[in-house]
């Protein structure tokens, strides 16, 4: 039931090798200056300061899967809360998603493979202790140290000395052998200069690291956590604009504004309660004004666009840097024929499906990125993403495919409807049997995909973490890319992407990325389908509501009227 949240929540694994050069990092910082991107026309009308103080707003959430340790929180239910409780070196603009400095006073390359971070003084944890360089270094070492078994350990893999603190299990997680205790407890690449300054040294140049540090894995932890982790888990202490108050497991979690917060994004509201429920019930609650915010309207609200009538003036579609697609398991020889892959893509009537199943709330894609990111130029996929049953049929006949076409996905979260429609379109155009093979749960689908056990087509969504076309391509289509699940490999594409990464100017880089996209479309390892905006819904008493590109309510902006 809670799986709707994970709808498309495909977090990229970060680019593993240090191949992202300075040009890209510069591109990132250069577009972070303006905040005009994205939503634009926010709801006008200020809130009532008195009510901001007194009213507790109820925000939809899902029960965190793990205690709220940032280094151990990888899913969106807990991530939403961790984001409110912590602020790291960098943060992402709530409208455009662009990274900017937060707790870092400066964050500069002091060598090609080394960053020096200066911290702003006077920032406090919720327990009153100051956030210092040690809090970052200790937290990062803790997360990376393999006996601590933290979910985000791999986020430090590029830092020097990671292999000393993180030892692999010799026979896999199911084997009886225990991994060796690591030789060190601290990464040699992290060095403290003074209380407000530290250096991060990498095994190879890794400029993109800076952009990543707004993510939960890189948060500082207070001394109390290292003194008694269990006590901390019972009463989490962070350094963000909100502090933890209380929780009822599986029901709700309360946070309150941290008045000593030093960041620019000081919230105006005082009390927030995350209510853990499922999105259908949440939608009904929003309509009845019992719940104040829901990030994504459920399928039942989208059918017939009833949300427009249900919630006049208090629901809005926000663009999200996410796309939906269907991947071929290229590692399986059955799917080796490129004509077949093109035929399937051209047999899908994206226009009609988005108009009917999604009631016009999705737009067909014409390439492998989406227009929300700077430098994206549509149309790379060309005719291969256009519905053309005649041509599709010819290619399909040429490919000599026999047997049914099957598509696997978790069935909940509204996936069943569109996949069945896609299947309908395919079987109509190609005159072949097309079946939807549901699995019960999202995690089961992920397991099979990661183990490369699937021999069927599968749903493959992607949610970018920073607004760059690069993030839509490198992790997914490069040989050995961190999220290249289907084993796609084309040396020419690799070379083109590498060239784009190292391009001198942004325009040059964008042009090369576009060319890479065109080459990928020629191979069609993944069929691009449509973008996936989120329809956020809120109660009558909220104003200044907006949804961040991470599909979270912007808690620093929202007010009560």
């Amino acid at each position, binding site marked *: 039931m809670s799986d709707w949240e994970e709808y498309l929540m495909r977090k990229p694994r970060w680019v593993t090798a240090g191949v992202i050069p300075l040009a890209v990092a510069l591109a990132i910082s250069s577009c972070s200056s303006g905040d005009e991107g994205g939503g634009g026309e926010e709801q006008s009308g200020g809130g009532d300061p008195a009510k901001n103080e007194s009213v507790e707003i109820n925000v939809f959430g899902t029960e*965190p899967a793990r205690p709220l340790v940032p280094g151990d929180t990888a899913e969106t239910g807990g991530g939403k809360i961790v984001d409110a409780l912590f602020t790291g070196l960098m943060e992402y603009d709530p409208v455009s998603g662009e990274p900017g400095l937060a707790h870092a006073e400066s964050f500069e390359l002091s060598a090609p493979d080394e960053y020096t971070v200066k911290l702003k003084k006077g920032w406090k944890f919720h327990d009153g202790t100051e956030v210092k360089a040690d809090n970052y270094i200790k937290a990062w070492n803790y997360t990376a140290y393999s006996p601590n*078994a933290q979910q985000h350990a791999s986020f430090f893999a590029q830092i020097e000395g990671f292999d000393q603190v993180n030892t692999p299990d010799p026979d896999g997680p199911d084997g009886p052998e225990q991994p060796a205790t690591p030789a060190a407890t601290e990464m040699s690449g992290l060095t403290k200069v003074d209380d407000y300054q530290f250096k991060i040294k990498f095994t190879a140049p890794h400029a993109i690291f800076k952009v990543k540090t707004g993510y939960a894995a890189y948060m500082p932890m207070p001394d109390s956590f290292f003194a008694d982790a269990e006590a901390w888990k019972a009463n989490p202490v962070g350094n963000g604009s909100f502090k933890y108050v209380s929780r*009822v497991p599986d029901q709700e979690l309360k946070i309150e504004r941290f008045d000593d917060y030093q960041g620019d994004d000081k919230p105006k509201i005082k009390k927030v309660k995350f*209510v853990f429920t499922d999105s259908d019930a949440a939608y009904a609650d929003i*309509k009845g004004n019992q719940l104040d915010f829901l990030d994504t309207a459920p399928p039942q609200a989208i059918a017939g666009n009833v949300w427009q009538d249900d919630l006049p003036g208090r629901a809005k579609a926000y663009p999200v840097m996410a796309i939906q697609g269907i991947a071929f398991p290229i590692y399986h020889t059955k799917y080796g024929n490129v004509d077949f892959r093109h035929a399937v893509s051209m047999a899908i009537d994206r226009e009609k499906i988005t108009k009917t199943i999604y009631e016009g709330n999705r737009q067909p894609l014409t390439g492998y990125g989406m227009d929300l990111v700077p430098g994206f130029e549509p149309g790379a996929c060309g005719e291969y993403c256009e519905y053309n049953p005649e041509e599709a049929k010819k290619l399909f006949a040429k490919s000599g495919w026999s047997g049914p076409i099957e598509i696997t996905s978790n069935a909940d979260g509204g996936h069943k409807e569109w996949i069945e429609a896609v299947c309908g379109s395919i079987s109509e155009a190609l005159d072949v049997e097309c079946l939807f093979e549901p699995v019960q749960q999202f995690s089961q689908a*992920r*397991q099979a995909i990661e183990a490369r056990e699937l021999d069927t087509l599968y749903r493959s969504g992607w949610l970018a973490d920073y607004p760059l076309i690069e993030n839509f391509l490198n992790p997914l289509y490069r040989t050995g890319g961190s999220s290249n699940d289907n084993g796609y490999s084309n040396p020419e594409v690799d070379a083109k992407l590498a060239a784009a990464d190292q391009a001198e100017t942004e325009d040059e880089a964008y042009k090369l990325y576009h060319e890479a996209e065109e080459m990928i479309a020629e191979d069609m390892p993944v069929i691009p389908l449509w973008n996936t905006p989120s329809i956020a819904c809120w109660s009558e008493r909220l104003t200044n509501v907006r949804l961040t590109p991470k599909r979270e309510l912007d808690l620093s902006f929202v007010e009560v009227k």
Partner: protein
Amino acid sequence: MGRYVLRRLLQLIPVFIGTTFLIFFLVWAVPGDPFTGMCGERPCPPQFVAAMTDKYNLNDNVVVQYLKYMGALLTGDFGQTYAEQEISELIGNAAPVSLRLAVVAVAIEAVIGVTAGILTGLRGRGFVDNLVLVSTLFLIAIPTFVIGFVIQIVLGFELEILTPTVSSEATWGELIIPGFVLGSLSMAYVSRLTRTSIAENLRADYMRTALAKGQPKRRIVGVHLLRNSAIPVITFLGTDIGNLMAGAIVTEGIFGIHGIGRLVYDGILEKQGAIVTGVVVLLVLVFLLVNLFIDLMYAVIDPRIRYD
């Protein structure tokens, strides 16, 4: 009496162990690793999976896991969820809500069902009888989720005369509609059961005797007829409390109620055997004890029944 109760209690032990082991085994047998898919669309670090597997004893064979679980349970420790929350707290929060819902449902089915049953049973064939018969048949024939959705959409979304969901406080008032939906099927059974029972007892010899003795009709019906007809109805209502607590998965889902139905459903999907078994432990205890209680009640209602 005392010996009977003791014997019954001793009989409960193997059933209790059997049911809890059965559910423990079934959840254990669901294929898949609960931790591998836990990290969103990123694979979990193998060290994380290994540490969690260790922590929750998932490397042991199922019997050892069960014994460890039961051992802890005897000391009052229900264990922790994978999110490191105390399961006893989860159940402690959810069970009262489910109990309230079940009580509301049973109350509704008892009041409406028994009234309809008595009316039709006493009057015999006629318009009321047919009306009740047809409407109970319809309640039996339409699945609960259809009744739930139709009520929620018509009253909650279209007519907007009530809030479509139940808040986390789940007050008695809020639970009336869900209770009605949950109890609708049993309500139909109760009315039919009452009707049949009364119809049978009307023909019984003691009724004729009472009539012959010239007792007033009200007394005959109130003391003799209803009392004797009550046993099957009470049996049914009693066992239904346990059934309704567990059977509310669908109703709780529709109305967003934070009860044990939701808890156990999520537990199964996340393969959290400890949650599922913990809930089942509670349910089985309720089920068995209520059954025992009802058997003892027989003796109170019907003096002909004696336990020794």
